[in-house]
């Protein structure tokens, strides 16, 4: 136990609940039928599974309506559960029954080197890199179309053992400045390989445990793939934190002016590079707000 505790401490992990900012987005209370239809994020995942099982034919959305309650009750009957229509931990576990993580060869000992993670939300894959070379790839679920997983270069800032439920076995929080996002396990394994979350990266519990044991707090996580529609009419200035800032940092880097990590934070390095580009191209560089001419020069407008 002492050895395990020391190992956990060395990898920067904490035991216990995921941070509050993650928990808010992943409800843990049972889903209750109600006279007025309830709107909850995980109803989308529930309806997807019920549809897969042939028990529900309606629209897949976030509304726990009469049709969805009926489908849940039928499912519960089929699985010898009390047909209350209440989706609790037992019902979620039953829904996951039969969903298996794809078999793969057992991983050998990991190579020596520095670990980093690359997530491609188009391919729905998380790759564990060692010294910049891919070592092992895992399937993931990513954010839905209206709640996309944030593209950028993040770092793992917290790690922990989850108590099951929506976070599965493990969680790793990322330093995305405009919201709570992380990599975690799940009690809805049927969602892996699809777009279901509100931005987090979900993995099979066995996979997230494997990754968790290998990476430390501070590990770089690079996310590429689908982005939300970016709006460059909004003023970008020192202190801004947004997907638009990530795109600005990437454009600056592509032009040859590296700001460091593309982390969506408009800090001193980003400000210096914006002014440098403006001055070099003979554009106005006095304003705090990134001039529209610079955005145009970088191909962002």
């Amino acid at each position, binding site marked *: 136990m002492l050895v395990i505790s020391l190992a956990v401490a060395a990898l920067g992990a904490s035991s216990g609940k995921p941070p509050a900012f993650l928990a808010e987005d992943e409800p843990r209370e049972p889903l209750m039928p109600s006279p007025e239809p309830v709107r909850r994020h995980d109803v989308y995942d529930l309806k997807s599974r019920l549809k897969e099982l042939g028990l529900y034919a309606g629209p897949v959305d976030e509304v726990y309506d009469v049709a969805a309650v009926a489908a849940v009750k039928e499912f519960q009957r089929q699985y010898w559960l009390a047909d209350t229509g209440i989706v609790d931990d037992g019902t979620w576990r039953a829904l996951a029954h039969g969903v298996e993580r794809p078999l793969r060869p057992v991983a050998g000992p990991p190579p020596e080197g520095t670990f980093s993670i690359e997530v491609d939300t188009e391919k729905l894959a998380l790759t564990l890199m060692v010294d910049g070379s891919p070592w092992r790839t895992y399937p993931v679920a990513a954010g839905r179309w209206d709640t996309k997983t944030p593209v950028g270069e993040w770092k793992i800032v917290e790690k922990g053992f989850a108590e099951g439920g929506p976070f599965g076995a493990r969680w790793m929080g990322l330093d995305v400045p405009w919201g709570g996002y992380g990599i975690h396990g799940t009690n809805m394994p049927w969602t892996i390989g699809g777009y279901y979350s509100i931005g987090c990266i979900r993995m099979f519990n066995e996979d997230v445990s494997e990754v968790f044991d290998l990476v430390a707090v501070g590990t770089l996580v690079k996310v590429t793939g689908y982005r939300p529609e970016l709006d460059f009419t909004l003023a970008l200035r020192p202190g801004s934190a947004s997907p638009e800032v990530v795109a600005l940092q990437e454009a600056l880097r592509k*032009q040859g002016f590296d700001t460091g990590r593309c982390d969506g934070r408009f800090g001193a390095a980003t400000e210096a590079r914006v*002014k*440098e580009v403006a001055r070099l191209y003979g*554009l*106005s*560089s006095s304003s705090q707000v990134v001039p529209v*001419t610079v955005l145009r020069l970088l191909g962002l407008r």
Partner: protein
Amino acid sequence: MAFLLACALLFSAASACLPREKQAPKELDLSGTSITVWDVSQPAVAGAPDYSAETARVVAEFEKDHGVKVDLRLVSRQDISLLLAGKSPGTGVSLVYSTEWPFVPAGLPGSPGLADPAAYVDSAAAYWTKDGAMLAAPAYVHWVSAVSTAAPDKTTPATACIPGSAAFLKSALDYPSGGWDPDNVVTYLAWVKETYGTPPQDPLAAWQDGAVQTLFPVTPYLYQWLRDSGGRPVTLSPEAGPRNEPGVYYTVPGYLVLAGEEPYRTCAAKLAVVLAANLGRWAARAIGGLPAAMADAAVFQVDSRFSDAERSALIQAVYAGTLRVPAAADFLYAEAIEDTVSEDVSQFLSGKTTEAELSQSIREASQKHTKP
């Protein structure tokens, strides 16, 4: 005996008058020397070599040829400006790029024999020469000019100026006939307003939309972007200023040796010449800069993508140029004025303030930022 002695004396005296075989000066042994160099990133330009990769290769060759170690760091131009203005420590930097807006830092240690003026275009060498000695190894001529394109529907052409540009005031006032006296600044701005009207909020959009035919001031970097981003042909079209200032303004970025002691100074001086030539060639290929080194004139002729007429106009303007690198005090004074009044200039050119208000603002700025 006395006779023999006298002959011996006479012989040795005569020998002393005979010309001796000249001894070649001893080349300083640089092996084992380690220096730090601050250089900058250059933009990625389609069809041009990668500047960082070229520079790394050139430095590696220099290290091997001279048995030295070079710590090459790519820093921002702001970092360099602060270093040269004495506003940041930057200890241990032996050699530094001047940035595209050079000035002579106060107390720059001399580097005798830094560069041979005869190896450079006259005006580029003269730009960096003071009291008969070159203060930097010149890299290329960073020109500033107006640029035009064909009016899409042949209506009256419109010219747009970019008042926020670092070159906007410099290109008119950095001449003996100009100067940064408040009256000159106001006179120039009044001329710009009368001649070119209100500048567009987004000059690049106006250009791309065809609302303007001519833009100024345009640096080589912006010229390359205009040329590569739009579908219309782009040509240099120098326009004289109100006091007949030449239509082509320029600076000559170069590499300054900051090390004052040997062997670092000699090592830095040799590398300065190499890096300057490397940048000059890149500038010719990527942004149409005119290499300062005479040996690289052909690169400009062949690879700059200018027309014959444009190359001629640039070369003639530069070869006849009389500009000199400013001293730190003058440069920083001008920068301070520009920063302080930039908003007032925009307001004036947009017609929101009067000439009298502008004049007062500039005088106040001038009084606040007196030269040391």
